[in-house]
């Protein structure tokens, strides 16, 4: 148990920045550049952790606490995901609610720490984040219900920790929305552009505009852990029985990089529609998981 926790924590902390590096490398490859090193994010985190900080005079204690809370909650959520078969650290009916609500708590503090600065930019990002994540959550939950049905369990970590895979059509119908939501929740194209410098178009980055030094390091690290978490879930859905399936997260990172290279980011107005269509796919999958017609065939 303790060893499992240590392994998952270490994996989340260590591998997550690498995912960002892989995505950036893939994007660089597609646009014909050499790109920054795979380990750039480690250097960035190290540099930021060493730095002094600047904090706006408008902010309150919320702003100081938020990075720690965001980081810890995201990390805890990531640790809940079993990294190899059968090793979820805690499982009960509805454990995924705890997992996603921990992320929700992280988001809550991220948002109020953004509003704490009293800036129109941060308010803008906070407003977008609050709305889009509210739209994304039902989609994820329906996908998870499908997976739970396939595995015949009410605990998500049990389902991820192994057990029988179901029909691959239904699995893919559950995975695709997950992937879309992963892009949305992790501020990737087409929902948000992680590389942009334009405050007016940002969602996630604009909320941490006033963070610096360690606070920023924790926020960035938390963001990459969140990406790790989602990609780990996806690979565990696809390959629940394999010990090494966590290595596939790097493949997921490559896929994200490809997606980001071949499509442009969409206008903010269309984001709810995108999430809505992800929800349709998720619901179709859920429907098929108990539809009589499907059983007949």
């Amino acid at each position, binding site marked *: 148990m303790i060893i499992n926790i240590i392994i998952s924590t270490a994996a989340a902390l260590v591998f997550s920045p690498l995912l960002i590096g892989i995505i950036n490398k893939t994007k660089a490859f597609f646009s014909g550049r050499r790109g920054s090193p795979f380990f750039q994010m480690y250097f960035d985190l190290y540099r930021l952790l060493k730095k002094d900080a600047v904090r706006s005079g408008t902010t309150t204690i919320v702003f100081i606490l938020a990075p720690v809370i965001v980081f810890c909650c995201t990390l805890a959520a990531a640790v809940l995901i079993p990294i190899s078969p059968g090793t979820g650290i805690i499982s009960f009916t509805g454990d995924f609610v705890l997992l996603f609500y921990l992320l929700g708590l992280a988001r809550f503090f991220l948002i109020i720490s953004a509003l704490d600065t009293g800036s129109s930019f941060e308010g*803008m990002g906070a407003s977008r984040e609050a709305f889009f994540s509210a739209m994304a959550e039902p989609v994820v939950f329906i996908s998870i219900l499908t997976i739970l049905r396939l595995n015949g369990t009410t605990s998500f970590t049990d389902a991820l920790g192994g057990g029988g895979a179901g029909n691959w059509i239904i699995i893919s119908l559950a995975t695709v929305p997950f992937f879309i939501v992963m892009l949305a929740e992790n501020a990737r194209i*087409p929902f948000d*552009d992680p590389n942009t410098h*334009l405050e*007016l178009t940002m969602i996630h980055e604009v909320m941490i505009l006033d963070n610096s030094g360690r606070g920023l390091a924790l926020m960035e690290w938390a963001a990459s852990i969140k990406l790790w978490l989602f990609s780990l879930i996806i690979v565990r859905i696809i390959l629940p029985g394999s010990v090494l399936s966590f290595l596939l997260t790097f493949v997921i990172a490559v896929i994200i990089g490809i997606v980001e290279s071949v499509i442009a980011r969409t206008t*903010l*107005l269309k984001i709810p529609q995108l999430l809505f269509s992800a929800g349709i796919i998720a619901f179709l999958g859920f429907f098929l998981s108990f539809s009589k017609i499907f059983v007949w065939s």
Partner: protein
Amino acid sequence: MKESSLIIKYNKSNPTSKVPLLGEDVFRKKVLEMTRGGGRVNSFFSAENDNEDLVLYLIISYDARGETHALSMKVENKAFKSLTNEDTQFHLFEREIYEQSGIRPLGHPWLKPVRFPGGNAGEMDFFKIEGREIHEVAVGPIHAGIIEPGHFRFQCHGETVYHLETSHGYQHRGIEKKLTGGPYRDTVYKMGVIAGDSTVAHSTAYAQIMEAFTRTAIPARAQAVRAIALELERCANHIGDIGALSGDIGYLSTSAYCGRIRGDFLNMSALLCGNRFSRGLVLPGGVGADIDDDIREQLAARLEAGKKDFLSAASLLWETPSVLARFDSTGIISAESAERIKMVGPAARACGIERDVRRDHPSGYYHLSYIPVSTSEMGDVSSRAYVRWLEVQESIKFIEKLLAELPVGDSGRETGTNLKPDSITVSLIEGWRGELCHTALTDGTGRFRRYKIVDPSFHNWLGLALAMRGGQISDFPVCNKSFNLSYCGFDL
């Protein structure tokens, strides 16, 4: 009434005394008659005459007839009745006149300084929409991208922008004032940096003015080199813009490739004259560098390669549905608004307005060779990008043609410094952003009494503000980039 305006001859100096000096009422009537008849204000400024009286000079042109007229008006009591309420295109000129000379346009609906005349950068009363729910977004003067300083003030509710006001003046260098009493030795270099990305256009305009005042006829070969440089400049900037536009929407491939291809085109300019931004290429009397056969072949080869690269990189853009969906219907400015505020350049052509100085008021090599005017209809970001894409292709074709038929001859001669006294001349050039207008007046000793520069950005900034109304604030960066206006060209 016909004789009450002077038809300016391009490349010729015209005696200032021939510019009719009218009383306010006659002037007003005449001007409004001209604008109603299709006249477009190129420049409107104040200058002192010999008696140190303030006179307003108006340069107005008919695009359809290819004529440019000049009139002037005597100002009494440092005030005149504003023309803006009758015709919107005067509004910024009148504000500038008020700022520079203190002549008050009475009844101007929005009279406030254009820049920061008091010297306190940032001090400006912005228009505010009433109501608790509106929030303001202040962007700039320092921007996250590597661009020039300027301040934008949005009045927003949520994601919707209801009003945008731009505030300039952070780049004010006092160029016009420094030119008074010129030309000086460094004037030609100053012209190169009015707007650093439009060096050829501004230098050419200045060169044409100097040539007109000194009655220098320059050889066709120099004209051709100027045209090539101007089109190369257009290509480089348009390609850079298309790349930047796709960068703003996170479409990396085109962004990265166009960024490189823009460099290729800048290097072609460097091949021509040794400077990537063509500094020092266009000189009064000719060009600073000639194209020999070696350069010509190299240029043609590089152009061919650049063209191929650009076509593939940009058609990637037009074939990606997510890009089109992002560009379409973003930042629309209607043709009526664009016509009302007399926008110029690609931004105007993207609204379906066929306005191109190269066709309407040709000078130099454009007399001899014609470039088709590229337009689009929707007036959105997509159209502005599309017009650029078309223009780059036309320009490349034009350069290829010119390289093939490059006239023989020398590349220039001295203009001398004996400017014709008491004269006025106007030079109109289609820079890559649109029409730029230089107007020079000489005094009795042959020095510049007034040198007035109107950059295309001066016409178009309001267009950006109008395009944003009712739009999404997250569309602003891409919309701004699709106009890509100059700050320093505006601030001067």
